[in-house]
């Protein structure tokens, strides 16, 4: 087991990793930017040192400084958390070249699965369903028509350089194809200075379902069930739950098996999440793999009783997984709400400042992962996540009731947060029925 781990992150995930380390009797080194100097959670680390200026690129993204910090404090491993350098293959490589273990998968696995295109190719090769598409930029109109016929309608034209929903056109009928193509190319050119577009089958009202994988360095790969993360706003997850209320048992089995297969062929070790879209007919399509621990990992921890961060540390230290697929028995239902410091009345503009009153809820099956406290500073420099509120109950209706109670109890003042929005979302009948899709929040609220 490692003697000392450097936590190359901040906020709630740094605190989470700190806690796991202490329970494993591993010493901790925390790093902080000048902006985070004085943060309360830093007191819990055995050592804390400043690694740079306020901007992430001046501190948390400076791989050389992080490695130097591990060197001077004689840490033998680095846990990257999520975001920042967590999926950066070069950082992982540098760490290991300096004899510092990177708590995550191998560099090869990060490169193979972390790259969307190569992951997709690997998926197709292993008969994991992917979204049918052009698999490359569209050259001429004849080729485009042929591809469109193969993919089928409705389809969506997307800008290669794109994002934010721009340079996208949904085409329902063959007759509209060429006109839509011309428009999409123009829009792409205007928005991204790049006319390249590709085609994908359009999946209407999809659910986002992801599978948690954990693997050791001895070839054992297991899944810990799925999480449904359909409730999103602008591609940012807001609510996650397990098990998914929108898939049947067979789909679940197939999804999880596909995820395990993909990770096995990629020789994956440590934690990872395989993401899928599921359509209204229960067909699923592989999207991508996140080669790191995710924000919503507590949802899986609550239903399986397995501490994912501790397991990450153990497998990185070379230990075998303590459990096998048969011994994993998810039970009950867990829901997580992400509470962000954002103003719902100002298009969710991030709010920064001091939390004067921080009153988290409690009770049976209630978990709050947060760096918040009375007097806590929320910086405008970093992500706006303030707290993760997770409830675990024997059934989904009970979990919903518990979440409603907890959201009512939770006080965070005076900053504006997503608490009021979450209260309305969790109370909505469509959420109760499980008949939501990824566009639900934007349409309804």
């Amino acid at each position, binding site marked *: 087991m490692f003697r000392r781990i450097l936590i190359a992150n901040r906020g709630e995930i740094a605190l989470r990793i700190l806690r796991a380390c202490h329970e494993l009797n591993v010493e901790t080194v925390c790093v902080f930017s*000048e902006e985070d100097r004085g943060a309360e959670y830093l007191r819990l680390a055995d050592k804390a040192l400043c690694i740079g200026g306020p901007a992430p690129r001046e*501190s948390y993204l400076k791989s*050389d*400084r992080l*490695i*130097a910090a591990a060197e*001077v404090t004689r840490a033998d491993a680095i846990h990257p958390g999520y975001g920042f350098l967590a999926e950066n293959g070069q950082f992982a490589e540098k760490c290991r070249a300096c004899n510092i273990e990177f708590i995550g998968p191998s560099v090869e696995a990060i490169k193979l699965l972390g790259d969307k295109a190569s992951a997709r190719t690997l998926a197709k090769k292993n008969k994991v369903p992917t979204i049918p598409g052009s698999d490359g930029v569209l050259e001429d109109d004849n080729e485009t028509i042929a591809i469109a016929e193969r993919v089928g309608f409705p389809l969506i034209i997307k800008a290669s350089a794109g994002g934010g929903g721009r340079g996208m056109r949904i085409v329902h009928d063959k007759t509209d194809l060429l006109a839509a193509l011309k428009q999409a190319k123009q829009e792409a050119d205007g928005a991204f200075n790049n006319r390249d577009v590709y085609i994908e089958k359009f999946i209407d009202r999809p659910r986002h379902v992801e599978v948690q994988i954990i693997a050791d360095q001895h070839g054992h790969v297991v899944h810990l069930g799925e999480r449904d993360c359909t409730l999103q706003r602008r591609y940012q997850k807001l609510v996650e739950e397990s098990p998914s209320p929108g898939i049947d048992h067979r789909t679940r089995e197939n999804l999880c098996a596909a995820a395990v297969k993909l990770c096995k062929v990629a020789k994956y070790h440590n934690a990872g999440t395989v993401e899928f879209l599921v359509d209204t007919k229960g067909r699923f399509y592989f999207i991508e793999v996140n080669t790191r621990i995710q924000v919503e990992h507590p949802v899986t921890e609550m239903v399986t009783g397995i501490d994912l961060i501790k397991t990450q540390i153990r497998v990185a230290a070379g230990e075998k997984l303590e459990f096998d697929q048969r011994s994993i028995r998810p039970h009950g239902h867990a829901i997580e709400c992400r509470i962000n410091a954002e103003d719902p009345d100002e298009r969710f503009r991030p709010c920064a*400042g001091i939390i004067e009153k921080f009153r988290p809820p409690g009770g049976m099956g209630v978990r709050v992962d947060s760096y918040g406290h009375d007097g806590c500073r929320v910086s*405008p420099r970093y992500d706006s996540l303030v707290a993760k509120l997770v409830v675990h109950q024997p059934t989904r209706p009970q979990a919903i009731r518990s979440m409603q109670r907890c959201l009512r109890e939770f006080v965070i003042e005076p900053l504006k947060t997503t608490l009021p929005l979450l209260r309305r979302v969790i109370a909505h009948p469509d959420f109760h029925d499980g008949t939501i899709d990824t566009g639900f929040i934007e349409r309804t609220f």
Partner: protein
Amino acid sequence: MLDLDRIRQLVEMMVANDLIELSLRDGEVEVNLRRPNPKSNEPVLVTTPMMSPMHAMHASPTNSPPVVDGKVPGEVVDLKHHEIRSPMVGTFYAAPDPDSPPFVQVGNPVGPSTVVCLLEAMKVFSEIKAETSGTIERILVRDGEAVEYGQPLFLVRP
């Protein structure tokens, strides 16, 4: 102009108006007052070489981090000293190698490009220059000690 009473008045004015920064110049002397933590009444007093006219900034809802020389809030630093701070994380070495004398000692004069120490990280040694002129007043770290970003290494008397 730079008498304590005047400075006290300026501090009171800043607190009363919830200003976080105030700069003013009188002849050749320039003073910057900054309140890194609007809740505390302790401003940080530093001089800067830049000449700028009097201006004031109102407190913003966000807490601006202490940037000017990175001083800890509440600390009133003697106007006369300048700190040489570490630009990186690494191990401090006072001399070019174990057999040589240290780059500088207390009392040595330094100029902007005088090498004052080495900082080592990932087996790479970086020469750290004074970037100021004056005399070494105090050496704040020991040879072989680990230093963090922004940590004061030397005090220089201009």
